[in-house]
C-alpha cells in the first residue's frame, strides 16, 4: 500500500480471524479496507460476527490472527497512550448502549467530550444540539436508567457522535427504534458523513441502507459474503 493510499485509509483489515471457545468461528479470514469519508453498512444474520468485528475495531477485543490498522495505527502494536488517544477519535454506539443508568442523559453524553477536555460551553451546546436532533431535549436531565430502550439507544448514539470523531462505529443503532425515529438517526449519520466522517454501521434494518449509492457489506458465518459495490473487499490474498 502506498503512503498516499495509507493516508486515505481509515480501516484496514487483513485476514482477521476470531474464534471463541469451544469452536465458534465468529470471524474467519476477513480482509477489508474502508477509506476515509465513507459510510459503510455491515449486514448479516444474527450471530454472523458483526459485533465481534466492531469490538475489534475499537480495541476491546484482539483478533486471534490477522492484522488491523485504524487511522494508520497497527492495533497489535499500539501503545496504551496511543490507544487512548485513538479511542477519543472514534465514536462507538454499542449494541448494549453502555450507558450509566444513575447519571442523567446530559452527563452520559458529556463523557465522550470530557475525556477530550472539551470546554463546558462546547459540551453544553453540543449536547443540546444532538438531543434536539434526536427529539430528546426534554429528557436532558432524566436519569438514563429511567428511559425507554429506544430513548437509551438514541442517547448512546448522541454520546458516540458528540466529540465529532473521525470514525463512527454503530452497532445496530436503530434496533429499538420505530421507522420514523430511525430516520432521525440515519439523517444524523448522513450529516456527519457529509462533513467527512467515516462511518461503519452494523444493522439488520434494510430500510436504513436501502438507498441508491449505499455501500453494503454482508457477513455470513464470520466470512465476508456480498458487497455492494464489489470493490470494497480486498482480494483473497489480502496483503499487498
Amino acid at each position, binding site marked *: 500500500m502506498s503512503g498516499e493510499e495509507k493516508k486515505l485509509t481509515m480501516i484496514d483489515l487483513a485476514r482477521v480471524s476470531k474464534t471463541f471457545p469451544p469452536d465458534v468461528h465468529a470471524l474467519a479470514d476477513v480482509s477489508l479496507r474502508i477509506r476515509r469519508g465513507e459510510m459503510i453498512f455491515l449486514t448479516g444474520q444474527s450471530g454472523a460476527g458483526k459485533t465481534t468485528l466492531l469490538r475489534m475495531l475499537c480495541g476491546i477485543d484482539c483478533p486471534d490472527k490477522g492484522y488491523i490498522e485504524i487511522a494508520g495505527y497497527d492495533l497489535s502494536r499500539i501503545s496504551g497512550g496511543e490507544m*487512548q488517544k485513538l479511542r477519543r477519535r472514534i465514536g462507538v454506539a454499542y449494541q448494549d448502549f453502555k450507558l450509566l443508568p444513575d447519571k442523567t442523559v446530559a452527563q452520559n453524553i458529556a463523557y465522550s467530550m470530557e475525556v477530550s477536555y472539551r470546554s463546558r460551553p462546547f459540551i453544553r451546546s453540543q449536547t443540546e444540539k444532538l438531543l434536539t436532533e434526536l427529539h430528546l431535549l426534554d429528557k436532558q436531565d432524566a436519569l438514563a436508567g429511567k428511559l425507554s430502550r429506544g430513548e437509551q439507544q438514541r442517547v448512546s448514539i448522541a454520546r458516540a457522535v458528540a466529540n465529532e470523531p473521525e470514525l463512527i462505529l454503530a452497532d445496530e443503532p436503530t434496533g429499538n427504534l420505530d421507522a420514523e425515529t430511525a430516520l432521525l438517526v440515519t439523517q444524523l449519520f448522513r450529516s456527519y458523513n457529509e462533513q467527512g466522517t467515516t462511518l461503519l454501521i452494523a444493522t439488520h434494518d434494510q430500510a436504513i441502507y436501502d438507498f441508491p449509492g449505499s455501500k453494503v457489506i454482508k457477513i455470513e458465518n464470520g466470512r465476508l459474503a456480498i458487497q455492494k459495490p464489489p470493490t470494497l473487499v480486498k482480494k483473497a490474498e489480502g496483503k499487498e
Partner: protein
Amino acid sequence: MNFLLAVFSQTWRSIAETWRTQLLSLITITLSVLIFTFFYLVYSNALQVGSRLDNDLRLIVYLDEQPDANLQQEYQHKIEKFDQVERIEFVGKLEAYDRFKGQLDDSQDVLKDIPKDFLPPSIEIYPRRNLESLSRIKGFSEYLETMPGVLKVQYGREWVERFYSFIQLLRVVVFLSGSLLILTTTFMIGHSIRLTVFSRKKELELLRLVGASNSYIRVPFFLEGALLGALGSTAGIAALYLLFRWIKTNFAGQAAQGMFSFSFFSTSSVCMIIVLSILLCAGGSFVSIRKILSV
C-alpha cells in the same frame, strides 16, 4: 486549563457520590493525627522544659592543679572538640573559697583556721540546652574524666538522667504514634480508594472505552486522597487545640507556672503537620491507585 477543569469537576463528582463511604476514613485519619500530635505536643513541651533548666545542667570538672592560661586554653580546646558548649568558666582556688564563704553567710568563722586554697580549682561547663547535648551529657562527663589533671566530674546526674529517660520514653511514644499514623492513614486511603473504585466501577470502565487518559482517571483519586489528608489533619489539630484549651483552663492553676508553661504548636508547625499529612495521603493514594487500577 480545560484539563484542570475537567479533572476538578471529575473529582468533585466522585466526592459528591462517595463522601459517605469516605467518612470512616476521614474519622480514622483525624483520630490518628490527634493521637500523634498529642504526643508530639507533650514531647516538644518537655523539650522546652529541658531548655529552661538552668544551673542544674552545669558540669563541674575538679582539677588537681590551678591551670595557667596556656593550660586553660588547652582545656577549652579539648572540651569544645567534644561538643559545642554554651559557656566555660574557670574557677580558681581563691574564687572557689570566696564563693564558699559567701554561701556560709553567718557561720563564716568556721573557715578561720583553714588555708584559703583548700578548695580545688574547677571548670564549670554549661552545655547547650537542647536535647542533643542533654542526651550526651553522660558521655561528656566520661570524656571529661579522661582529660589530664581531672580529679572528678560532677553534674546533676540523677535528675538529668531521669529527665533524659522521660524524654527517651516520649520519643518512643512519638515514634510509635507516628508510625501508627502512617499505617492507618495509608491503610484507610487504600481502603477508601478501593471503595470508590468499586462504586464507580461501571463509570471507570466507560471512561476507558471513551479513551480517558491515565491521568484523567488517576488525578481525581489523587486529589481525593490529598483532600482527605487536608481535612483529616486540620480536624485532628483543631481537636487537639480544643483539648489543649480545656486542659489549660482547667489545670493551669495547679501546674508550676514557671516550669510548665504548656504552649501550643507554632503556626509554622501546624502548617507543616498539615502539609505532611497531605503528602502522606496523596502518596498513599498514588500507590493504591497504581495497585488497584493498574493504570
